[in-house]
């Protein structure tokens, strides 16, 4: 399998995505914003469509759209007088509607679009790998440096505000990291499933971990494992890679839940 160039590239990009998605998703789950990745994904779809229409790189257009969408969700959530998940719903549906309109205008309702919606390892190029690796490394570095602050603030946001900590800036940082992750990960798992890879490994890890740091570490392990196992399975069984990866992650959740229940009974 690895003698094929496209599989080597898929595994390399997949490894970055497998580590990055849960590492960023950890903070979303921790804030009970598990679906934000999905919202950003739908804005990324509008970005891809805009890329086709304007004849610029759809991947780059998706990155710009994701970043904009993430900041919009955060702004609506904190300043825009929206309640609960209304901010997410607004951006989510506006994104998908804009995407549909742009795509049909560009006459791009075809196979090319499917590779963004469902992921396509066949289309990963060396240039993609460089972009993914660079963005992934930058995002992971940001997570590593800001981990203590990001994790600490999620435990007690109001207490952090009382003490004058820059809570809003940290929230924007998480939103930007999530947007970058979506733009990077959609190459492998597709826009429709990108959020799953950010969230499922974290929920699985939370079932068995005994600390926050352990949850993060385990989530990254589950994410990486799911991508590598999913890609391998999809190659030999001729399955859709994105879906297979997410199903592996979902299976990890089932196993972790059972393990957590058993451990809890001891």
């Amino acid at each position, binding site marked *: 399998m690895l003698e094929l160039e496209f599989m080597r590239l898929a595994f390399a990009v997949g490894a970055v995505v497998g580590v990055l998605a849960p590492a960023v998703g950890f903070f979303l789950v921790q*804030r009970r914003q598990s679906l934000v990745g999905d919202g950003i994904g739908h804005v990324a779809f509008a970005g891809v469509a805009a890329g086709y229409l304007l004849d610029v790189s759809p991947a780059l257009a998706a990155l710009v759209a994701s970043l904009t969408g993430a900041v919009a969700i955060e702004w609506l959530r904190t300043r825009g007088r929206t309640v609960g998940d209304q901010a997410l719903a607004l951006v989510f549906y506006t994104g998908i509607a804009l995407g549909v309109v742009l795509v049909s205008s560009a006459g791009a309702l075809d196979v090319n679009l499917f590779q963004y919606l469902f992921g396509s390892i066949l289309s990963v190029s060396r240039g993609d790998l460089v972009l993914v690796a660079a963005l992934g490394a930058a995002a992971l570095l940001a997570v590593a440096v800001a981990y203590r*602050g990001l994790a600490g*603030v999620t435990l007690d946001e*109001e207490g952090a505000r*009382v003490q004058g*900590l820059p809570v809003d800036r940290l929230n924007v940082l998480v939103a930007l990291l999530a947007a970058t992750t979506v733009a990077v990960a959609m190459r492998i798992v597709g826009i429709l499933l990108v959020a799953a890879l950010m969230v499922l490994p974290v929920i699985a890890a939370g079932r068995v*971990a005994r600390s926050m740091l352990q*949850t993060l570490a385990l989530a990254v392990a589950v994410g990486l494992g799911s991508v590598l196992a999913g890609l391998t399975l999809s190659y030999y069984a001729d399955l859709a890679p994105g879906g297979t990866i997410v199903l592996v992650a979902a299976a990890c959740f089932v196993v972790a839940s059972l393990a957590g229940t058993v451990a809890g009974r001891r």
Partner: protein
Amino acid sequence: MQVGAGVAPRSPTPPALELRGVSFAYVPGRPVLERVDLGVEQGEFVAIAGPNGGGKTTLLRLALGLERPDEGTVLLLGEPAESCSRRREVGYLAQRSQLGGEAPATVREVVAAGRLARSGLLGPLRRRDRAVVDEAIARVGLTERARAPLRTLSGGMQQRAFIAKALASEPSLLVLDEPTTGVDADAQEALASLLDELNRELGATVLYVSHEFGAVEGHVRRLVLVRGGIVFDGAPQDLPGLWHDPSHAHA
């Protein structure tokens, strides 16, 4: 109207908290608090009680600069509350239902989060900060449970962990909102003793806000009852007998 008892506006150590003529309404025309004057000196241990809906949480939010008064001024550690530069000195324990997070945080992780205002947000915790965190955990008697996930501890132990979190910022003012919710009677008494000890040994000002004050009545030297305004401010033993049950505070 006079400013709260014994408040000298330009003294070298400003009062921990000072409200002058403060009125506040969430809905215009329906004030939650009217013309409130309250001064709390540094080093005091004060219980703020009153019926639910009486405005004590609003008073607290005003004091911490989370709300702006419609009228009057709020000084926190001698500076306007919303722009206070000494916020890191305020250890705040929110109502338990508001303490968030999905992942299983350990006692140590929770307490370390309380150090953020002093240590900065980036990079690993330095040795001195780690020492303060360990000391805070030791002070509340949780050293042996430091690595345990918080959710595996009893309600009383969880509250002690949150107090340690507040202590980790080396606060000069400790504010606790409904700290006894979901805590059994023995643990409530232990909590009150701990706060008394922190007040005496660390010299920290303690504001204890609760709808009931039975647990701290033997420890505080001052009790403030809030119901739309301040209806009582004095030593607990001077409280009219009928009011000892806070549900009678409207009588």
